[in-house]
C-alpha cells in the first residue's frame, strides 16, 4: 500500500514517464506531476470540460481518468495543439473572433473543437453546439466560440 506507480505515456508526441498514486486523476498527474497546467480543473466530475484532453485518439475529461490508466497511452493536451510557434487555425480563430474572455475554459474548448474538425471538417452550427455541449463557458454565451469554430473550419478547408 501507498506505493506510487510508474506510468509510461506519450504526451504531445514526446515520451513522458511519471509516478503517481492510483487515486490521482490523469488531470492531477498532468498538472501537478508533469507540470502541464494548461489543462484546467473546473468541476472534477466530468461536467465542465475544462480538463479535456485527447486520450488514445478520443477526447475525454481527464478528471475522470485515473493516472494509472494512462499506462501506454497517447495523450494530447492544449500544450500540443500549436505546431512550434505556429498557432493552430482554431487558436487563431479564437483570438480573431474574441472567443474567449477569462480564458479558463479555452484550452478545453480548443482540444474539443479540434477533435470535431479532425473528423468533421465542415460541421453545421448544430453539430458544433452538440459536440461542445460537454464544455461549459460562463463568459461568452458561446456565440463567438461557435463562430470561431466555423471560421477555423472554413479556413482549414480553404487551406487544404
Amino acid at each position, binding site marked *: 500500500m501507498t506505493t506510487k506507480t510508474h506510468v509510461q505515456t506519450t504526451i504531445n508526441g514526446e515520451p513522458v514517464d511519471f509516478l503517481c*498514486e492510483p*487515486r*490521482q486523476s490523469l488531470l492531477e498527474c498532468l*498538472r501537478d506531476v508533469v*507540470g*502541464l*497546467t*494548461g*489543462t*484546467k*480543473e*473546473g*468541476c*472534477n*466530475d466530468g*461536467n*465542465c470540460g*475544462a480538463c479535456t484532453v485527447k486520450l488514445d485518439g478520443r477526447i475525454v475529461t481527464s478528471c475522470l481518468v485515473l493516472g494509472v490508466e494512462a499506462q501506454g497511452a497517447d495523450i494530447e*493536451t*492544449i*500544450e500540443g*495543439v*500549436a505546431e512550434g510557434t505556429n*498557432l493552430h487555425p482554431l*487558436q487563431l480563430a*479564437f*483570438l*480573431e*473572433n*474574441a472567443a*474567449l*474572455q*477569462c*480564458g*479558463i*475554459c*479555452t*484550452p478545453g474548448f*480548443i482540444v474539443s473543437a479540434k477533435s470535431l474538425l479532425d473528423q468533421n471538417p465542415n460541421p453545421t*452550427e448544430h453539430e*458544433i*453546439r*452538440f459536440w*461542445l*455541449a*460537454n*464544455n*461549459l*463557458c*460562463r*463568459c*461568452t*454565451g*458561446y*456565440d*463567438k*466560440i*461557435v463562430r470561431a469554430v466555423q471560421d477555423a473550419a472554413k479556413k482549414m478547408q480553404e487551406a487544404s
Partner: protein
Amino acid sequence: MTSSDSTDYKVLGTRPIRHDGADKVTGRAIYGPDFDTAGLLHGKILRSPHAHARIISIDTSEAEALDGVMAVVTGADWPNNSNGTSMVEDGTGTEIESNSNWLRENLLAGDKVLYAGHAIAGVAAASPHVAEEALALIEVKYEVLEPVLTIQEAMAKNAPILHEGLTTQELGEDSGVVSNTADHFQHTKGNIEKGFEAADVVVEREYNTVMVHQGYIEPHNGTALWNTDGRLHVWCSTQGSFVVRDSLSDLLDIPVSQIRVTPTEIGGGFGGKIPIYVEPVAALLSKKTGSPVKIVMSRKEVFEGSGPTAGSNIKIKLGAKSDGTITAAHAWMAMEAGGYPGSPVGAAAQCVFAAYDIENALVDGYDVVVNKPKTAPYRAPGAPNAAFGMEQAMNELAEMLQMDPIDLRLKNVATEGTRRVDGPTFRRIGAKEVLETMRDHPHYQAAKTEGHGRGIAIGFWFNIGFDSACNIAVNSDGSINLTEGSTDIGGSRTSIAMHAAEVLGIPVEDVRPSVVDTDTIGFTAVTGGSRTTFATGWAAYEAAQDVKKQSIERAASIWDVDSDTLNMEDGVIKSKTDSELKMTFKELASQMSDTGGGITGRASVNPKGVGGSFAGNMVDVSVDDETGKVTIERFTCVQDVGKAIHPSYVEGQMQGGSAQGIGWALNEEYFMNDQGNMANSSLLDYRMPTSLDLPMIDTAIVEVANPGHPFGVRGVGEANIVPPTPAIANAVSDATGNIMTQLPLTPGAVLDSGK
C-alpha cells in the same frame, strides 16, 4: 447606432487581438490554481453539514496526528482584536463598514455555523488527498438548530434567530429589536398616495426569486507564504488584489505594508471573486507551518461555501393614467443576505425604478439573514431581481392600457435631469436611445413566428469610478510598457492599452500591458462595478497624456524651441509654425537616453464622471405545451455603452450577461432540502446553459457618449444581465397567457403556471 460624436479615432473602435491571447489559447497563462513554488503544501477546509448549529467543541488532535499533516487551524486562530470593523464592497462597488468578526466568522466559524458549507477548520498537508483525509478526522460536536431558509420564514414572528446580537436598523435608527431583518430602509419621491389616487389603472403583484451562483468555471483559490521576515505574499485569482491585501490586513491584523498580493490570471468572477475566502486560511496555515500553502476549492465548495446572489421577495405596485403616464410606483423588496447581513437590496432599491421618470415613488428595502451562504456581488447585484418584478409589471400595465410595451416605456423613460427615487439626478443617459433602437430593430419589426412568445425588458446598472493607477515606461524602440492593477477578467488590459495607444498615436501592438502586484502599482479598486475600462482606462489616458507632454517637452529641448509651439498627433511631434521640425515618437524614443534619460508617465485617478448603462432585450421563445420546456428561439441584446473601445469584447460582455440571465431565468437555482442542504451543488445539477441550450445572441451597440469620460466610455459589464429574466418571463407569458411570478421558469413551473 451612434448618437454621440463623430470623432475620428485611430485605435478606439478597432478589434485588435488581445495581448494575452497567445498565452491563453496555448495553455501557458498561469491562473491561480496553476501557481506552484518550492515546498508547497496543500490545504483543505472542513465545512459544516448543518445549516444552523451551535459548535460545542472542535477536536483536531487526530487530524494533526495523521502522517503528512503539517497544521490545522480553526476560528480560534484569528487574532484576538474583536469589535473591529472592516471595509467591504457592497455590490455597487461602494466600500461600506462591516463587522470584522462577521467577516472572520464567515471564513472560519466562531461559536455558530450559519449555513451548510460554512468553513470550520483548515488543514495543510503534503498532498491534497492527505489534507482531505485529515478533515474526516476532525471531530466537531454540534447542537443542531432549526434552519431558516426563506425570507418568509426569516421574517416570520418567532422565527429562529441567526444572530442573537443583531437588531434591526429601522429607517436609520437602531430599533433594539432582535430579529433576522438587519435593515429596513426607504427611498421616497413625491407622494404615492396622491399618485395612486390620480391613476386610472393599477397593477399590483408579488414576485419570488431564488439564490443563484455566478458560476465562474475556475474555483476560488489562493496560495499564501508567510515569510520568516513577517511579510505575507499571496498569489490568487481575485477581482481586486488591493481588496485582498486590505481584507487580509483587517482579518489578520497586520499592516498593509507587510502584505503583497500578486493577482494571477483569473478564470471568471462576475463579482464572486471580489470577497476573499481561502486566502486568509492559507495565510494562517502558512504562518503555522512556515511553508507556502495552496488552497483550491472544489466545485461543491464553490457552491456551498462561496457567495451566490440573493433570492428575493418583491412586490410591485404601479399606477398609471390611461395615456400611459405612470403616476405612482411602490416597490417592497426583501432580499436574502445569507448567513450574515449584507444583501444586494440596497442596489436593487436604487435600480428598480431607475429606467423611468416617476413623480411619486416609494421603495421599501429589507436586508434579511437566512441560513444560506453569505451572498456576494454577482453582476449588477440585486438589479435583475428588481427588474424581474418591475419589467413584468410594466408589461402587464401595457396590456391593460393596450399600449405597445416599448411605447409605454418610452412614454415614461428617464432622461438627463430625471431624479431617481433614491436621490441622484441622471446626467446624459441612453435609456431612450436603447428603447428606440429596440423599437426599430429588425427583431422587433419582424413578425412573430406562429406559436412563439415575444418579450421585452430594459434594465439599468451603475458605473463606479474609484481609484485606478497606471504607469507607462517608454522603450527605446518607441513601444511602451503599461502597468496597471486591474484584474483582466475579459480582455480589459487590451481595452486599457487602446486608451494609451490612442493618446500617443501609436499602434496598440506597440503597447505591452501588464497587470501587476500590489507592491508595484498604486492603489487600484476592484474589477467590478463596471469600472475597469472606464476608470483604469482613464488612468491609462492620463498616464499617456503625461508621456505625451514629456515627449513634447523633450522635443522642444532637443530643438531648443518653446514646447507651446509643438504638438503631437498620430505619433508625430511637430512644430505648429515650422514644417521642417518634426519627429516621430519612435525617433524621439531612440534618443531618450542621450537627451535626458527615459520617459515614464504615471497617473492615479478617481474619476467622478461616471455614467450608468442601460440594456434592453428582445426575446422570442417557444414553449412545449406538454412539458413546459422553454426554448430561446431568438435573443437580441441592446446596450448603451457610451463608446465601444473594443467592440468585440463589448459584444462579448453583452452576450455573456445575456447567457447568464437566460440561465437565471430558465434553470439555475439553489435547490435546498428542508434541512438547508443544497441538493444540486454540481455543474451537472446546477444547470448553467450549455452551447446546445442557446441560440446566437444578437447585439446592438448604442453609443450615447458619457460626457464624464474623455472618450465617452460607459462601463458595459453588468447592465446586460438585468433585462433577461423579465424579458424571458414576458415572452413566456406571451406564449402561454400566464403571468410568471417566480424564478426559475423550470418546465414544471411553467406547466403549473396555467393551473
